[in-house]
């Protein structure tokens, strides 16, 4: 037998009647009272009327009492223990000192938790108190661990931590409240404050969150908060980098902000912080003059009393690409070959074409009185295009351009052109009757940059151009993914009426050749390419490739081989990154502090097949002003797809280059490079400030309370009451079965009856 005493009671109805029966009787009673009142409504004496009404109402209530049969139910009940979650911020910003030279924020938390221990223990009779650290995953935490283990998380996500804690309340134990201990430096959902959806999400928690702010606002710190820049920029086009810098404790001071490209200063500005807690935006406008991937660094000086110095620098990687390939087309004279190449280049949105044609030589007689007024000709600006502006072109094309006349000879600019190619430019020589051994202008200096040299008189017999084995896979002549479709594309083209006779130089790659015209026992080249110094050159030993563009359509079906050939050639000449044999890609391009530097190297043979089993060597080189210092080397072997991924130990923050070489046997497979930025601080450490306003908002929107540390103990925090549940037995004790209740009912009815008779009512 259970002898546990009852610890709760409640009033209940013990009537055996069903609810609907009680309702019917109750309605009947109400009607009786109402009709009685209606019957005496004309009674002139207010006193009598009220007396009768009161007696009838009292009798009605007494009758209702007997109908309901009220009783006391004695109960044994118990309270469920709900949970209270203490969430401690374990993000890296908690390692900042509360004040310069003082204890860290985590140490301040540990101190608070220790002092709050009695208060938390006092909650234990009604709640289960659970202490978690969030980094950003929730994990049980002890006070000792808070003090001993440094906080490491790279981000602060308060809302996620609160959601996780609330989601854990789906079981038997519900969450009655949260004690959130943090510096409020959220950099995820609440980075912009508790507004909009974030505010609604806080309210949806339906749990009071009491916040305890750690740290002080008075810390002195400069930080590069944000860099706004696109992932890529166009070479020779100005771009603006917007940098958001914050200064706390630097009110009225001017601080220099410098933008560097791999150590070299690109731009610098001064920023003046107007208040002691100010954020300013600085715009740097500059014009990249080279394509490639580069690491840029924005930095401010580190002052001795700053809370954290690492956040004064921020690096980012910028990919500089061509907006349009700038092509200089120099034409010896108007021809169909020129017409179709021009038509193609002009309609290519990726090409910015600048062209100069020799429309008239000194031997031509236009038959005019005034050349100035009657002809549209302009002087050939040789000095401008072959000297001062030469470097502004990505590709220079000579189309049957070769004059020995003093007025049109470029002899004095040949070395410029040769150097232009050697130092990274691109050059195309298209044949004809004035070049490649024909005509009187031999251009020997410029010829040094060409992959072919004259080998005899041109041959005017029509021929079908033939693709070589190298041409089958080379990006200039490969027309499709498969070798057979490339072959059939070229084979379907019409014959070409004539070619210059040339000889390939050692190191040149012949992509197409002549089927029967030979040089030194080998088929004469028609299309040949090579790398010359840092540049590239292509020779096309005919002036009749326009037949591929026009004559090819005589049988009806459109043919784009000519368009693709020139499109491919331009991409290859300007070293389109997708066409290099050794492709180096930092993975990722921007590395968070403490993370390894990854690099993916994709190697191809000279015929552009994947280079399986190639030995790859990658050097990680720190880039500083005017110097490059090797930091580490990794080697690997490519797989069947010609790709290998290598990883470097986390290096010190800063800009780096990844310089790769590959070899297969004794064959060099080329060089490649990429840039990688190793960041000094992640988003977590870029701002040392505390955010009391956010912590107060969280408390307000969840009906909690906000405090600031230090505190000497746990204050009274709002918590939801734990629910009560019945356990064990219950016992009913009737209240209605007393004789005096019956006497009261009879008395009230009798008194009313008596008075109605007395006042003259029936």
């Amino acid at each position: 037998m259970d002898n546990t005493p009852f610890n709760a009671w409640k009033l209940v109805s013990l009537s055996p009647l069903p609810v609907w029966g009680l309702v019917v009787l109750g309605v009947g009673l109400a009607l009786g009272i109402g009709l009685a009142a209606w019957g005496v409504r004309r009674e002139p004496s207010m006193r009598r009327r009220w007396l009768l009404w009161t007696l009838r109402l009292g009798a009605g209530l007494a009758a209702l009492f007997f109908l309901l049969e009220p009783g006391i139910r004695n109960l044994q009940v118990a309270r469920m223990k709900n949970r209270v979650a203490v969430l401690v911020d374990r993000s890296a910003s908690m390692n900042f000192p509360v004040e310069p030279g003082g204890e860290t924020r985590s140490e301040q938390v540990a101190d608070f938790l220790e002092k709050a221990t009695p208060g938390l223990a006092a909650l234990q009779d009604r709640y289960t108190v659970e202490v978690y650290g969030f980094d950003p995953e929730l994990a049980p935490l002890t006070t000792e661990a808070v003090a001993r283990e440094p906080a490491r998380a790279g981000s602060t996500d308060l809302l996620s931590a609160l959601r996780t804690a609330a989601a854990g309340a789906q079981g038997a134990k519900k969450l009655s409240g949260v004690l959130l201990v943090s510096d409020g430096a959220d950099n995820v959902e609440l980075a912009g404050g508790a507004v909009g959806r974030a505010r609604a999400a806080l309210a949806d928690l339906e749990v009071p969150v009491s916040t305890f702010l750690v740290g002080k606002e008075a810390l002195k710190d400069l930080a590069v908060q944000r860099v706004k820049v696109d992932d890529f920029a166009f070479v020779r086009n100005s771009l603006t980098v917007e940098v958001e810098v914050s200064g706390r404790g630097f009110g009225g001071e001017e601080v220099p902000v410098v933008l560097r490209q791999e150590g070299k200063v690109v731009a610098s500005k001064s920023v003046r912080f107007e208040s002691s807690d100010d954020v300013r935006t600085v715009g740097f406008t500059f014009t990249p003059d080279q394509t490639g991937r580069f690491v840029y660094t924005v930095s401010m000086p580190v002052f001795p009393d700053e809370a954290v110095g690492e956040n004064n620098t921020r690096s980012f990687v910028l990919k500089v690409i061509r907006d349009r390939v700038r092509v200089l087309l120099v034409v010896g004279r108007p021809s169909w070959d020129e017409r179709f190449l021009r038509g193609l280049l002009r309609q290519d949105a990726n090409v910015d074409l600048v062209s100069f044609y020799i429309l008239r030589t000194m031997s031509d007689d236009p038959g005019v009185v005034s050349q100035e007024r009657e002809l549209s000709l302009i002087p050939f600006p040789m000095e401008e295009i072959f000297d001062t502006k030469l470097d502004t072109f990505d590709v220079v094309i000579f189309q049957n351009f070769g004059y020995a006349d003093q007025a049109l000879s470029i002899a004095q600019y040949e070395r410029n052109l040769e150097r232009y190619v050697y130092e990274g430019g691109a050059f195309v020589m298209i044949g004809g009757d004035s070049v490649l051994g024909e005509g009187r202008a031999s251009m020997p200096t410029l010829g040094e940059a060409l992959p072919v040299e004259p080998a005899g008189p041109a041959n005017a017999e029509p021929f079908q151009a033939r693709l070589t084995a190298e041409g089958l896979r080379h990006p200039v002549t490969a027309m499709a993914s498969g070798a057979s479709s490339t072959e059939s594309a070229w084979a379907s083209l019409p014959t070409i009426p004539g070619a210059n006779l040339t000889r390939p130089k050692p190191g040149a790659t012949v992509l197409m050749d002549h089927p029967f015209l030979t040089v030194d026992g080998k088929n004469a080249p028609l299309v040949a390419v090579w790398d010359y110094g840092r540049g590239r050159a292509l020779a096309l030993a005919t002036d009749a490739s326009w037949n591929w563009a026009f004559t090819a359509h005589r049988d009806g079906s459109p043919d784009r081989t000519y368009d693709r050939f020139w499109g491919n050639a331009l991409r290859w000449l300007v070293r389109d990154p997708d066409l290099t044999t050794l492709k180096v890609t930092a993975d990722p391009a921007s590395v968070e502090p403490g993370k390894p530097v990854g690099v993916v190297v994709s190697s191809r043979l000279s015929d552009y097949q994947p280079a399986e089993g190639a030995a790859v060597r990658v050097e990680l080189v720190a880039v500083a002003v005017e110097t490059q210092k090797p930091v580490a080397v990794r080697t690997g072997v490519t797989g069947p797809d010609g790709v290998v991924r290598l990883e470097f130990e986390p290096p010190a923050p800063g800009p780096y280059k990844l310089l790769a070489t590959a070899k297969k046997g004794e064959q060099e497979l080329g060089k490649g490079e990429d840039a990688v930025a190793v960041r000094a601080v992640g988003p977590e450490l870029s701002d040392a400030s505390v955010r009391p306003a956010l912590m107060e908002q969280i408390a307000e929107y969840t009906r909690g309370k906000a405090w600031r540390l230090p505190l000497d103990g746990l204050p009274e925090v709002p918590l939801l009451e734990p629910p009560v549940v019945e356990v064990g037995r219950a016992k009913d004790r009737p209240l209605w079965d007393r004789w005096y209740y019956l006497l009261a009912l009879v008395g009230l009815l009798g008194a009313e009856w008596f008075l109605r008779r007395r006042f003259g009512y029936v």
Partner: protein
Amino acid sequence: MLVPLLSGRASAFGEKSRFIPAVARHGGRWDARLSGLRRIAWELQRRTSVEVVPDARPFALSSRDLFEYPFLYLGGDGPLPPFTDAEVENLRRYLTFGGFLLADANDGSDGEGFDASFRRELARVLPQSPLKPLPSSHVVFKSFFLLDSAPGRLLNKPQLLAANIGKRAAVVYSQNDVAGAWSRSELGDFEYDVSPGGEPQRELAVRLGVNLCMYALCLDYKDDAVHLPLILNKRR
């Protein structure tokens, strides 16, 4: 008499590298201006750096060989019978993929004769590209000589008409018998009088011919930004 002007330097590549006008052989009187075409080729050689073969090669409009000659002359004196479907299709492809057609009303007609027939047939060949007047700012008027008008043997219409494919004038049409002004007999005399302007008008017609050939060869070269300031200055 034309030969001495021709350079021998292009011979190594054969004649296919040179400018050779093709002539459309149609059902009407197509061959009235062959000497004019030879003459304009010769003028082109004499006055510019272009290498030519001073010939006029006739081809049926349905011929696939047309695609070796990107400059095509289509003239006529009087009405033409309708083109066959094969001719329409071949000419459309020729123009679409880069060919240039100079149409010339040798009869100076307007609304009848060659004019009516040509407009009818061109509407079949390029239904999406109606003939429109070429503005005086068009590159045809500055492709070599600076010109203000488009005279031929006649001066019936001050303007040329053109049918564009994209931005390119694929067809240029003169109602002034421009080739009539170029034509010479085998003795070297001009075959037709030029009116109303006489010999100065003939010279302008020759210059127009040179410009038309230059346009076919160089497209909009003279519209390039590097030329504009100088040309505008000359036109002042």
